[in-house]
Structures are given as structure tokens and as C-alpha cells.
């Protein structure tokens, strides 16, 4: 047996630039379409209509504008989910094609950009079959129960990813992350229901597997997020997002705020104004080397937590390598074997939406939400000398857009761009994993969850609780 430790790298880089360019163009144009549509709906419903109503004189104008504003988050999510799912399926197919030296879909539309739109239309027009012996009511309810929570789950995240835009504050719950987790625990009911109602043995087994898997992996998933909440001292996703602003060192993935002191101290050193380096360090790390050890432990713990979260999330949404409920080679298609037409489309839609939501949670909880990874002292845009002339140069154009029409809200805009970039990078990583790893076996999956992940997260929870005491957080 000959396996050397080296990574085998591709040896002919003769270039796949054309395909990569196509992929990039396709992604960018789709993302533009998605977010322009969502932003347009939000703007129309949340800003434009209230603006018009403000000038009108009929008596319930105020109430109507409030209703419009209140409906904005829901409208945004409803517009976003189907278009985004189309894009994600297309992105997945094209990315897998890149990894496997193929072209991917390239027939419908320019370079296949409309392939999934065509697929969606096809799925909606397909005959909707309910198998003989199926429990028709449960069979119909299952995809709805599977899909609905993903809409509700997405709502509290809206404020967190848009830098607390005031249109989305209506769903800014103090128990934000708890709400998201509660919503994400519901879909498994849909799977079990669909699996049982299909009157098919393969479906039933898929449903049972899904129940076992989702319940087991919910624990490490929740524990990893709870640990982050412990570090942050709040359950509110918006505050957690805010706490992480100020560059990579402040993100939860690196110590969950343990490095904020270091960040501030370096900033003080660089700007050579305000408090001196040592003083800042002392304020944040009061116990000398013990504090530094604590910070190091926290960094390690949060990185592991991030990994645990990714694994748990993968299992929760049935992605490879945890796609046991729909294991093709064993259970045909698992719980959705008997589904066709629009019901299958809903299952499909919900799967990809769930992937997007767990990626967004990861971004909000670990990766600094809409924060630029460059620390403030390294970011040229944070210095007035750079920033002000730029702002002055652009102001004639921007002032109309920002102040008169409220078309752009600068803090939201940049935050949203960063969130989009980070989220789709995570999704891309999920696709890469899908292209590489084989599937777990159900008992190994259980072993891995109960015997590895849960103890690890429990140990980390205790470690974090102690290490937190030796560092001053968020002074």
C-alpha cells in the first residue's frame, strides 16, 4: 500500500478559465437578479408606499403604511426563497461540473443560466400523484410542514444581516437565535410524516432515519450555538452581530470576543493616540498570562465549535455526508420517494432554503455577520483621510439615492454585500464537500453524534464558561 502524505495536486493547469469565468458571470448575474428583486420589493413595500401614503390625507393612511412596513420582512423572505433556491441548484450543478471536469447545464438560456428556472416550471406542471394506500391528508401536509418553518426561521436573521435595518426590526426578537433553532427543529416532523404517509417501506425507513438523525444532531448544534451565546451574553442575533464588528479578530470564530482587547490594543498602537498599548491590554486581560491562556483556549474552542456547528448543520439539513434519509443507493430516495410534482418541488425548495439558512446562521454567529474581515486599523476606508475625499467625490450621486429616495442605506448595503459573500462561500464549501465525501452509515452517524460531538461540545461549554472569567469581554 503506497499512500504518501503529500497532497496530490493537479498537474496540468492548462486552464479552465473559460468555464470558471462562465461560472462567475452566472453567479454574479443571478445574485444581482435575486437581491435586486428582494431589495426592490422591500423598498416598494417598506419605503415607497409609506412615502406616498405620508403625503395623502385619507384617514387610515398611517395604519396602512404601518401594515406595509410590517409585511416587508415576510414579503422579502417569500420573494427571496424561490429565486434563491433556483440559483443555488444551478450553482451547485455548475460547481460540481467544475470539480468533475464537465460543463454543467449549458442549454437553457445563456450558458444554461435559466436551466433551473425551466426545471422549476417543469416540476410545477408535472402530475401530482398520491400513491394508493397513502394517507392523503398527511401526505399533503408533510411538504408544508417541512417548508413553512424555513420561512419563519429566516425572519429574525433579516435584521442581523442588514445591520439592523429599521424595516426588519419588527421581528427583532430578544430570543432571536432560540426562535431560529425552534423553527429549525420542526421540519423533521414533516419528513417523518411524509415518510409514514407515503405507504412505502423505503420512505418509512427514510423518515425514521431522519428522526433519529435530526434529534441526535440537534444537541451538538444547539450546544455550539449556546456556547457562543454564553460568550456573547445575549440570545439576540442583532447584538451578537454588532459585537463582532471591527474586523476578523472580533469575530466569534476567533475566541468569541476574546481577541477584542488585542484588536483595540493594536489599533491604539497603530494610531498612536488615546490609551497606550499596555493599558488597553491590561484592561482586557487583567490576569496576565492566565488571561492569555484563557484567550488561547477560547480561540481553540470556538474554532472547534464552528466545525461542530457545520457538521451538526449538515446533519440537520440532510446534506452529504449525512444524507441518510434520502440515501439513493439504499433507500431509493428515502422519505420523498413517492413525491412528485409540486410537492416534490416544495421538498426540494425547502432543502436548499435550509442550507441557505444554516449558512446564514453560521455567518451571523461565527463569521461576523456583515463585518469586513480587515481590522479597522488595517482597513484604509476607516481612515478619514481616505474615506472623506471618496465620499465627497461620490456625494452628488449618492445623496439623491440615499437621502431623497432612500434607495440605498449605506451601512445596510455594505453589510449585506459581506453577508452575501460569506454565505455563498459557505454554500460553495458545502458543495465541495458534497463532491468529495461518501455517506456515513446510520449507526456510525449516531456514534459520531453521541459519542464524539456531544461530549466535545459539553467539554468546550465548561471550558468556555471558565475561560470567560479571566478575560474582560466587551468592555
Amino acid at each position, binding site marked *: 500500500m503506497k499512500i504518501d502524505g503529500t497532497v496530490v495536486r493537479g498537474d496540468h493547469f492548462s486552464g479552465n478559465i473559460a468555464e470558471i469565468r462562465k461560472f462567475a458571470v452566472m453567479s454574479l448575474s443571478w445574485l444581482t437578479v435575486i437581491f435586486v428583486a428582494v431589495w426592490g420589493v422591500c423598498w416598494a413595500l417598506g419605503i415607497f408606499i409609506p412615502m406616498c401614503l405620508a403625503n395623502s390625507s385619507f384617514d387610515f393612511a398611517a395604519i396602512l403604511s404601518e401594515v406595509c412596513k410590517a409585511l416587508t420582512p415576510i414579503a422579502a423572505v417569500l420573494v427571496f426563497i424561490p429565486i434563491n433556491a433556483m440559483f443555488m441548484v444551478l450553482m451547485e450543478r455548475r460547481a460540481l461540473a467544475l470539480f468533475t*471536469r464537465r460543463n454543467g447545464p449549458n442549454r437553457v438560456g445563456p450558458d444554461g443560466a435559466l436551466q433551473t428556472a425551466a426545471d422549476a416550471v417543469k416540476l410545477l406542471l408535472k402530475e401530482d400523484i398520491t400513491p394508493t394506500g397513502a394517507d392523503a391528508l398527511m401526505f399533503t401536509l408533510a411538504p408544508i410542514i417541512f417548508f413553512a418553518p424555513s420561512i419563519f426561521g429566516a425572519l429574525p436573521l433579516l435584521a442581523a444581516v442588514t445591520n439592523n435595518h429599521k424595516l426588519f426590526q419588527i421581528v427583532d426578537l430578544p430570543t432571536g437565535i432560540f426562535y431560529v433553532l425552534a423553527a429549525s427543529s420542526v421540519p423533521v416532523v414533516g419528513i417523518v410524516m411524509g415518510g409514514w404517509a407515503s405507504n412505502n417501506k423505503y420512505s418509512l425507513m427514510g423518515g425514521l432515519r431522519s428522526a433519529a438523525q435530526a434529534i441526535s444532531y440537534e444537541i451538538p448544534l444547539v450546544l455550539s450555538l449556546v456556547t457562543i451565546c454564553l460568550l456573547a451574553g445575549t440570545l439576540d442575533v442583532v447584538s451578537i452581530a454588532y459585537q463582532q464588528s471591527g474586523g476578523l479578530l472580533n469575530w466569534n470564530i476567533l475566541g468569541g470576543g476574546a481577541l477584542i482587547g488585542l484588536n483595540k490594543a493594536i489599533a491604539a498602537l497603530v494610531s498612536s493616540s488615546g490609551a497606550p498599548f499596555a493599558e488597553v491590554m491590561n484592561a482586557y486581560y487583567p490576569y496576565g498570562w492566565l488571561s492569555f491562556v484563557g484567550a488561547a483556549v477560547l480561540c481553540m474552542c470556538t474554532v472547534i465549535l464552528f466545525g461542530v456547528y457545520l457538521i451538526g448543520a449538515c446533519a440537520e439539513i440532510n446534506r452529504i455526508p449525512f444524507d441518510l434519509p434520502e440515501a439513493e*443507493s439504499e433507500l431509493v430516495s428515502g422519505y420523498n420517494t413517492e413525491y412528485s410534482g409540486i410537492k416534490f418541488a416544495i421538498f426540494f425548495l425547502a432543502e436548499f432554503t435550509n442550507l441557505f439558512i444554516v449558512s446564514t446562521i453560521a455567518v451571523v454567529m461565527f463569521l461576523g455577520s456583515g463585518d469586513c474581515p480587515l481590522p479597522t486599523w488595517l482597513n484604509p476606508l476607516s481612515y478619514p483621510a481616505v474615506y472623506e475625499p471618496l465620499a465627497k467625490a461620490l456625494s452628488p450621486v449618492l445623496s439623491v439615492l440615499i437621502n431623497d429616495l432612500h434607495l440605498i442605506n449605506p451601512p445596510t448595503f455594505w453589510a449585506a454585500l459581506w453577508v452575501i459573500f460569506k454565505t455563498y462561500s459557505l454554500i460553495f464549501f458545502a458543495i465541495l464537500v458534497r463532491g468529495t465525501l461518501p455517506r456515513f*452509515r446510520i449507526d456510525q452517524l449516531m456514534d459520531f453524534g453521541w459519542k464524539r460531538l456531544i461530549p466535545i461540545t459539553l467539554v468546550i461549554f465548561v471550558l468556555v464558561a471558565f475561560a470567560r472569567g479571566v478575560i474582560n469581554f466587551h468592555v
Partner: protein
Amino acid sequence: MTIQTKLPEFKTDEMVINLGPQHPATHGVLRLILTLDGEVVKHTEPVLGHLHRAQEWQGQNRTWFQYQALIDRVDYLSGMFTSWALSRAAEVIDGTEVPRRAEFLRVLCAELNRISSHLLWLGTYLIDLGALYGFPFYPFIEREKILTFFEEISGQRMMYNYIRIGGVQRDPKAEWFKKVEEFTKDFPKRVDEWEAIVTENPIFLNRTKGIGVLTKEVAQAYGVTGPTLRASGIDFDLRRFKPYSVYPELKFDVPVYNKDGDTWDRYMARIQEMRQSIEIIKQVLDMIPEGEIMSKKQNAGLRIKAGEGFAAVESPRGILGCYITSNGSDKPYRFRWRNPSFSNLSVLPPLLEERPISDIMAIFGSLDIILPDVDR
């Protein structure tokens, strides 16, 4: 005597389930009747015959010349070997001396075909294990190259009809040999890449290590052959044990694992076999002489002397034997095929006993069975 303990009886319903004939992972139309307790297989019954085409009977009702073209369909992933077994059996009866160049060409094509067959197995095996979307394409890319070589010399990608009684059908051009040589240089790097992805992957190890252990005794009792047998630690390869053609002149190893014989060993056995085949091909490309390629005229009236003969070749799946009785006419009198897949499949029920349902495909795939070869 064990101490009898009172156990609470949690008797769950047993479930009978039909895996196949229409199932994404049964590699054709195999039907397995499984009795499951939860996810654990209690009993397996393979049901054969969904792809039975009476290949032996067809052989007896066709002329030698016609049957040569049909026989590739028995094991469509390694058509060269079925043709070779038939040709060798006929040559044994006839006493035909096959030209040296033809023998080398046969070995060359057969080893290429062995690689292509193992490549298809590698891709589909990873599909069986759930790596459905990325990895399986890589072996198929390489397999495609080999099929293109075959297409060039025989005219088709899978139904070659290239090895004939008394030689081979067509003499490849010099460029063809060059292309094959390039392929042999490139191929080991590709295998390294696949091994980097798969071999030591923890999930793959979990799915294959210690799963489906086929002990020497069981393997011998069921007449298992090929890499499946060698992975169980029995050094039995026809190319060594009963050398035929020009194999005695070639240097190669037969990868044997003197270990437990689980699915991972079977995987490694095939990977190593591919590497060995590449070595053989390199040697053949160096040694191949010039000369005739056919010693028996190929036409509709092809006849074999009266008599009977048996010949076997080491196909990618095991020993592929062909027994023929000829009565001197243009049709064989009696055909009998010994197909490796049939005996390799028979060992499935004992291997599956008490295994979870996910292991069915891990074990079944590792046996590398092809259904037309089972049913004929």
C-alpha cells in the same frame, strides 16, 4: 452454559422488502428479498434470472463466426475476456497456434479492459457508498480514454469482437501504441489522486473496514475467484497459477492480502490490480514483436475440429471458463460458461447476515458483480 437472564422482550416487526429489480444501486436487474429487523438484515435471498438470455443455448444455435460477435454481451464490461475464453477454448480443440504478435495484442487489450472494468467498478462503488456527485466522474474520464482505444481498433466501445479464434481482428497502427503509452504514463498519477480522495478518507474507512469479512474458508467453499478471493488472502490468479498466453514472460505482482478480507481489502486489491495492469501494458508495449496477427481465416464458414476443450482466463471478476464440445461443423455442439459473477454473488447472503441495510450496498458493490454475467 450461559446464565439465563430475564430480558424484556422488545420484539419489533420484521419487514420483508424487495431490493430491486428496479433499484438505483443493484447494478442491473438483481432482486434481493430482504427480511429486515429495523435496519438489520436477517435474511437475504437473491433472485436471479431477470436478465437470462440463454447465452449457452444461443451459442449452440449459431455458427462459430456469429457467436464470436455475441459473446461480448455476456460480461459487457470486459468483453475482451469473454472473447478470449471462447477463442482459447476453440484453439485448444483445434490445436491452432496463435501468432506471437496476436498473443501480445490480446494481453494488451485484456489488461486495458481489466483497467476499464475496474474503473467502472470504482466509480459505481463510490456511488454505492454515497459519494454520488463528484468522485465517480474521475474514473469514468479515464475509462472513456480506454474505450476510445478500443473503438479505434475494434470499431465499438463495448462490444469489441476483437479477439477471434486464431488471433485478433485488426492490427493497430503505430500511433495507437503511442497513445496507449501516453495513457500508461498518465494513469498512475490519476490513481494516486483517487487514492488521495478515497483510500484514507475516514468515512470511507468506517464504511469499509471490517465490513463484509469474507474468510478464506467461506470464499473457497463458495468458489469465489478474482480480486474478491485474493483480498481474502488466497494467492490464486490464473495468470500465475496456470499461465496462459504470454503471461509467463511478463513480470507482475498479484496483490494478495493476507488479512481479513473485508470490503476495504477488496477495494485495495482492485486498485493495486490496476497499477499492475499498467505495468504489464508497459512491458507489452516494449516487447511486442512484428508479424502476423491471425492464423485462422475468419469467415462465415469458420469450422473447428471435432473434440472438446476447456479454457479459462482471469477476468476482472474472476475465473471465466468456457467449455466447448465441437462436432466439426460450423456450429459448436455444446457450450458451457463458467462465470465468475455467479459464484461471487452466491456468497452475498452469508456476508449480509446481521448487517445494517446501509452495508448491503457497501458489501454488494465490493463483490463487483455484473448481472448479465450472473444470468447469462
